[in-house]
């Protein structure tokens, strides 16, 4: 019965105006796409976090904007459990309340919790946790605007933030998403419109360590045949490989900025 006094509360119930919107003109037919949308990445922009990264993807009328921060290693809060031999990686993934079209998202939804866990399990293989016994490393990801493939960008952003924080890693984790339209065509790096299409055949998000060619995260729903799924996994891996150099460059640049060497290229 007692309500939440820690937030300023609005009315008990509110509805999204989009539900009452007049029907719009039909959307443009989808096309198969095997190239990821352009991506902008920047590491080391937050002043307070030890490591941070910002990724923006997509074009025209807004893109997916993801901000990530990492801190640690610091002393572990929980001393029990299996975390003694290596560090505990704690991940938090969430959407800003206004990040998506449609109704305002609440805090701590089931999906956020699931993706936080998936983020953690996808980053764990890449981080050399055994180097930091009895420690914990925090990674936060905040989606400022979701125009599709937010979780894939979150994966990349989080691993950039970890690298920027100087945490030892085997490789940078690159995330890439794919959706399958009802017609069966595969769309790499879908926009929110593609993802939200009714009867879309399914979505797949894959996390890859490109240098080691190891898949460290895989999350998929929808209906697939074995062949289409294998095809989708392959496409996603290709997508990851294409994004990899951008992330590398971004890290190199961030490092340079940090050591504040005047801009003299390694060449």
């Amino acid at each position, binding site marked *: 019965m007692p309500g939440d006094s820690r*937030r300023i509360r609005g009315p008990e*119930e509110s509805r999204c*105006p*989009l539900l*009452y919107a007049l029907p719009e003109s039909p959307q443009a037919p989808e096309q198969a796409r095997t190239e990821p949308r352009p991506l902008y990445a920047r590491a080391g922009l937050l002043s*307070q976090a030890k490591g941070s990264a910002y990724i923006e993807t997509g074009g025209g009328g807004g893109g997916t904007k993801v901000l990530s921060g990492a801190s640690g290693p610091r002393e572990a809060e929980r001393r029990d459990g299996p975390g003694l031999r290596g560090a505990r990686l704690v991940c*938090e993934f969430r959407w800003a309340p*206004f990040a998506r079209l449609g109704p305002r998202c609440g805090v701590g939804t089931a999906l956020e919790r699931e993706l936080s866990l998936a983020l953690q399990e996808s980053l764990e293989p890449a981080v050399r946790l055994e180097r930091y016994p009895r420690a914990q490393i925090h990674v*936060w990801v905040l989606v400022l605007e979701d*125009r599709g493939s937010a979780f894939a960008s979150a994966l990349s952003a989080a691993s950039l933030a970890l690298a920027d924080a100087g945490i030892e890693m085997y490789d940078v984790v690159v995330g890439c998403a794919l959706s399958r339209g009802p017609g069966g065509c595969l769309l790499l790096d879908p926009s929110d419109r593609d993802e939200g299409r009714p009867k879309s055949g399914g979505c797949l998000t894959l996390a890859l360590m490109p240098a080691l060619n190891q898949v460290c995260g895989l999350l998929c729903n929808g209906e697939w045949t074995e062949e289409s799924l294998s095809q989708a996994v392959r496409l996603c891996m290709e997508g990851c490989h294409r994004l990899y150099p951008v992330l590398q460059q971004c890290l190199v640049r961030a490092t340079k900025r940090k050591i504040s060497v005047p801009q003299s290229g390694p060449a």
Partner: protein
Amino acid sequence: MAAGFKTVEPLEYYRRFLKENCRPDGRELGEFRPTTVNIGSITTADGSSLVKLGSTTVLCGIKAEFSAPPTDAPNKGYIVPNVDLPSLCSSRFRPGPPGEEAQVASQFIADVIENSQIVLKEDLCIANGKLAWVLYCDIICLDYDGNILDACTCALLGALKNVRLPSVKINEETGLAEVCMKEKSPLKIRKNPVATSFAIFDDTLSLVDPTAEEETLATGTITIVMDEDDRLCVLRKPGGSAISAEKLQTCISRAITRHKEVRKLLDEVIESIQPK
């Protein structure tokens, strides 16, 4: 050497600077950090703005939804401001429900809205007693380097100026709302409150726009919110060292100047994104 001195005796370190009438980051006592405003970048929100004060970065996004008006005021809508200080922005904040500082900031913003009448709640009513807009103003701090109250107020104002609400008609037959997303109109902004914060050092010196470090070392803070008619909307002085009336008056004068600056800044930005 200087770094070591700073770690061991942070207060003394600051005092040496202040004696020379400047601050470690090179500013004068009455100087703001560079303020950058970016409006309308979050397309999923109905209105948004990003404000940077030096490193401090605050993002405000506004979502408008429908609800029945409150029973005790059938001709009003709702404005629901919440300030979120995630652990992303500073290691001092724990994850989980809003902590003390976030609650205080949320309440402060709510007070600013209430006192300044920035937007009249009556303007948000669509159909008396039936339907009204709820403006969820979510302010998220992305980087915490002091003086978030100023940044939050500015971000809120910027975002409110950016809000475009779709036109709504009530269908006579079904009694349901019909929304036309194509026809959008801006909100009527009645007042432009701008906040100016000061940190009080050693009971006498007042520094404008304190960084996080300065805030922790200061003996008190004071925040003044002015509107364009040079009226005080909120004056917040949560304890700390006392301040003389003369000093307060100087602060208010500075706040008036600041208001003009920020007003101009916001106008310019809004102008630049106006569809031509």
